[in-house]
């Protein structure tokens, strides 16, 4: 170790992650120089600045989180995006597809539906509590998306826009149901128990024994019932932040309110759920 420091001969030899980073960085720098030189020689000044920006972004971008970085005991979500990178890529693809559809390209509808429908369906399912209602509302939501496609402006994000439409669909449905006197997501409507969770839907730390599964099912039932009894404003804020994985800013945009208000609503919902779980000894 000492000789290596004294001679300096092996100072830049690969000795671990640090030196690997240095080598990688020097390779990157040489690649940047190549690209820049080529661009400058051809008097493509715009391309030169683009190259610089691209490489600066590549340097500045944080390394993506691996699956092993997931904290232990984390709860699984089958429908929500598992990784931030995937979610971003999916979101970009969604925006691109919606842009095509808004411009009149009918062929973009099928892939758009495949990507967007599961997210909107689970959102509506969490609000309504019943799958057949959620499926009907999903159809209505897509009809409205189709009707309003010309108002989707290029460069804006599809997810908040489409979630807002789905929310309007549910609010209209709840209003009509109230007039007709039929339950929407009241406690009476959600007494039907949820499907028994399998291994993939159980918390990572949970035992997979039958009694543990039954216990998990009861917990999920309780969460669903308590969620159904919450005021809609709190329920939708909680669902968007906790289950749909949206940011506070996006949720505020969808709910047409301030970010502080969204946090307060979600926190009140959390306190109610926590109290319900505490009462049953969870």
């Amino acid at each position, binding site marked *: 170790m000492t000789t290596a420091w004294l001679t300096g001969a092996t100072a830049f030899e690969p000795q671990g992650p640090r030196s690997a980073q240095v080598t990688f960085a020097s390779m990157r720098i040489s690649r940047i120089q190549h690209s820049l030189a080529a661009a400058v020689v051809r008097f493509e000044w715009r391309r030169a600045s683009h190259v610089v920006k691209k490489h600066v972004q590549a340097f500045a971008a944080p390394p993506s989180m691996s699956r092993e970085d997931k904290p232990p005991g984390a709860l699984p979500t089958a429908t929500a995006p598992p990784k931030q990178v995937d979610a971003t890529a999916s979101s970009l693809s969604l925006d691109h597809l919606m842009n095509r559809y808004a411009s009149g390209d009918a062929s973009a509808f099928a892939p758009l539906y495949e990507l967007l429908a599961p997210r909107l369906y*689970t959102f509506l399912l969490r609000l309504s509590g019943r799958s057949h209602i959620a499926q009907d509302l999903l159809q209505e939501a897509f009809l409205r998306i189709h009707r309003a496609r010309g108002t989707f402006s290029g460069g804006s994000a599809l997810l908040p826009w489409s979630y807002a439409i789905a929310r*309007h669909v549910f609010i209209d449905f709840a209003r009509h149901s109230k007039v007709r006197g039929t339950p929407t997501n009241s406690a009476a409507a959600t007494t039907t128990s949820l499907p028994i969770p399998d291994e993939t839907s159980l918390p990572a730390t949970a035992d997979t024994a039958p009694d543990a599964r039954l216990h998990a099912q009861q917990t999920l*039932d309780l969460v669903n019932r308590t969620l159904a009894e919450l005021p809609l404003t709190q329920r939708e804020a909680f669902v968007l932040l906790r289950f749909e994985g949206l940011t506070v800013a996006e949720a505020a945009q969808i709910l047409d309110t301030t970010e502080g208000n969204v946090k307060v609503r979600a926190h009140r919902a959390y306190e109610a759920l926590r109290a319900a779980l505490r009462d049953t000894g969870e």
Partner: protein
Amino acid sequence: MPQPNDPDLNDLMSIPDPFAASPSALADAKPNPEWWPASPTRSRMRLRRWVGFTSAVAMEAILVYGMGWRDQNPLSSWVFVAGIAIPFVSAAVLVALATREKFHLRVSLAWVLPAAFVAFAALTLASHGNGDSAFASIAACLVATTLFTAGPATIGLATLRHSFAIGASWRTAAISMAAGLTGVAAIRMHCANDAFAHVLIGHGNALVLVVVLMLTLGTRITRA
């Protein structure tokens, strides 16, 4: 698993998801847009907005022409031009803001609306102040201004129906304010009564009326 981008909300993650493993049979239920009614594309929507705005202005011009130009008590030229131009320009700015997707509407409205109001009030105060403040004339002008305002508001609703997914109420308020300002500018070209109370109550109240009406009824039409 999604994580909220706010440390205040980390506790939320301790609540399990009841529908994490929800079965989805969505592929069978895929709708066919060809069966749905035709919807305007982006370019068609842009054209529709321009046609709507132009026809609203044309409607006001026709109404002023039909009801008669003010012939008594002519205002000085700058007050007259500004009294018409400022509400029209404010209306155009409001429409442009309301129909923009990527704009922090609430912040812009917080600046634009008071600015438009202060400009309008300043011009009202700066007017000659000639005329009477009788209740009958105020009531008559309130009805006339409401008529002037109803046209652009109706055109706005028809043009922008099912248009606003996000911030529908704020945007509808902006559109109704634009319709109100257009009506106020138009009535100024017709009514020669420049008494402060008359202008403020008879002309200005129609603006408030249209905003309240549009917010209560119009939002359901403009919401996507």
